[in-house]
């Protein structure tokens, strides 16, 4: 096995060519979703909350939701879309008749999921910034976080997608994994403040929590040593899962 970047980019361009056909339809919901969350949770629920984590609730919520958007963007891509390409469209069977190898397929797909995370999260950020909720230019530090969030959730989703026997199991992934992450990863309230002391480690295990914590710090313009731990978590977990996905991808595409 070997990786060739030009071939991985050819895989990426296939996905981009498909997306270009529908991007106008896809990108509108990307803008509405954050607006609805900010209105309902931020302004609606937030009206009953004086402050959270030392800031107005809307300011607490906004950077976290940007990360959630990036997570969702990558997740859609590596779950249903990958599964369909793998099982129904047989797209990879066609690629493997050319010099493209399974490693290139994996790299191209991860790169595309990262791109989608950037598009989703980027749209959300624009709305947040337009609403005056992002400190500029310091808040721009959230942008390099979006591909990292995308990478983390691309690798998590890929490992799942490459191992499940049928498409119906994605409902478990969404309702039993992504939704709880969304609800408990510091997005709506600081989880650590609600956990008993000996359960604090639970918070550190949740993958979404790390990008969210980094995003909030980026908006606050503060740097602290815990950010190094968050970055290490994201990179290390992504790397391990990527190796795992690599083995599974090769097993699924060749025999």
């Amino acid at each position, binding site marked *: 096995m070997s990786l060739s970047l*030009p071939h991985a980019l050819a895989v990426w361009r296939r996905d981009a060519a498909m997306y270009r056909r529908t991007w106008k339809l896809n990108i509108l919901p990307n803008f509405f979703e954050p607006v609805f969350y900010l209105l309902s949770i931020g302004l609606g629920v937030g009206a009953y909350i004086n402050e959270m984590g030392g800031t107005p609730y809307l300011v607490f919520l906004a950077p976290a939701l940007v990360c959630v958007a990036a997570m969702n963007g990558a997740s859609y891509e590596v779950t249903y879309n990958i599964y369909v390409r793998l099982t129904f469209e047989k797209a990879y069977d*066609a690629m493997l*008749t050319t010099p493209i190898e399974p490693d290139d397929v994996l790299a191209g797909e991860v790169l595309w999921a990262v791109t989608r995370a950037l598009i989703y999260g980027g749209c959300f950020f624009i709305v947040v910034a337009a609403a005056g909720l992002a400190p500029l230019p310091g808040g721009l530090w959230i942008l390099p976080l979006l591909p990292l969030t995308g990478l983390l959730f691309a690798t998590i989703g890929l490992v799942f997608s490459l191992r499940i026997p049928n498409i119906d199991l994605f409902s478990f992934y969404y309702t039993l994994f992504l939704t709880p992450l969304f609800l408990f990863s510091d997005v709506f309230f600081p989880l650590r403040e609600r956990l008993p002391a000996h359960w604090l480690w639970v918070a550190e295990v949740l993958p979404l929590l790390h990008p969210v914590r980094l995003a909030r710090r980026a908006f606050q313009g503060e740097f602290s040593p815990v950010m190094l731990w968050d970055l290490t978590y994201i990179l290390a977990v992504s790397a391990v899962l990527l190796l795992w996905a690599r083995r599974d991808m090769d097993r699924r595409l060749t*025999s």
Partner: protein
Amino acid sequence: MIVRLRSVSKIFGSRIAVNALDLDVPPGLCFGILGPNGAGKTTTLRMVYGVTRPTAGSIEVFGLDLKKHLRAVRSRLGVTLQQNVFIEALTPIENLRVFGRYHLLREPELSRRIDEVIEFLELGSHANMPVRQLSGGFQRRLAIALSLMNRPELLIMDEPTTGLDPAVRLALWSRIRELRAHGATVLLTTHYMDEAQRLCDRVAIVSDGRVVDEGAPGDLIAAHLAPEAVEVDCTPEEESALLDGTIRAARRLRVGRRVTFYLSDAAPLVERVRAADHRRPLVVRPTNLEDVFLALTGTSLEAAA
């Protein structure tokens, strides 16, 4: 040799898909692998372009060891898969562009190749409509066009005309012949005997993962069966009365009521059948590859006593 397989086996779990197979595909020929469904044809092709790894044996393509030169080999061959793979929402041109990039083609060469394959497969009138609106015949042409984007020296086709109507099959055969005439080597699988006989210079008959026999279609027929075949509907009792000890069929094949006799001269038997009952259904035809195939792989064929 363009393709050279030596004692290649592939075992999936407990099933032996390909069993110590030897295969030599010489350059410039159309070579057919002929066999029933499940004989190991697709697995053999997949091993030739390297997505299925053999359990044992060695594979060389273009004289290169496939294990060591996978990308280099794949850049010089094209594959038409059994099942068409397209991005259905996109047009043929867009599909060709995406596929051409898999071979790292860039503009302006990419557009030049697209024009070339569209012209060659006469796809021009349908080049700008979404693929999902194309008929089965045009989709198959597009599938072949995709596999020609890198101007392959070796074209591998897995059942290129299965499920197509006769006119489309004829049109595709003429394209394949033209590719061969321009120097490409074609390696195809089929379970259509007429396709193998009309299109292939050489065929290998495969059954249960092994090559049963191999050669030019005409030579295979001559080697295994008498040149004339007579098909008659009759019971076994009527059959012995018809033959009456005086006509000696080299071999015969019975399927239900229908018996096929293979003879060097059909005339005496035809006369006898006509004399006994002139309304009895009777077919006289040249022996074909299908007969050879049944003779080599079928169990119901028996040497005449």
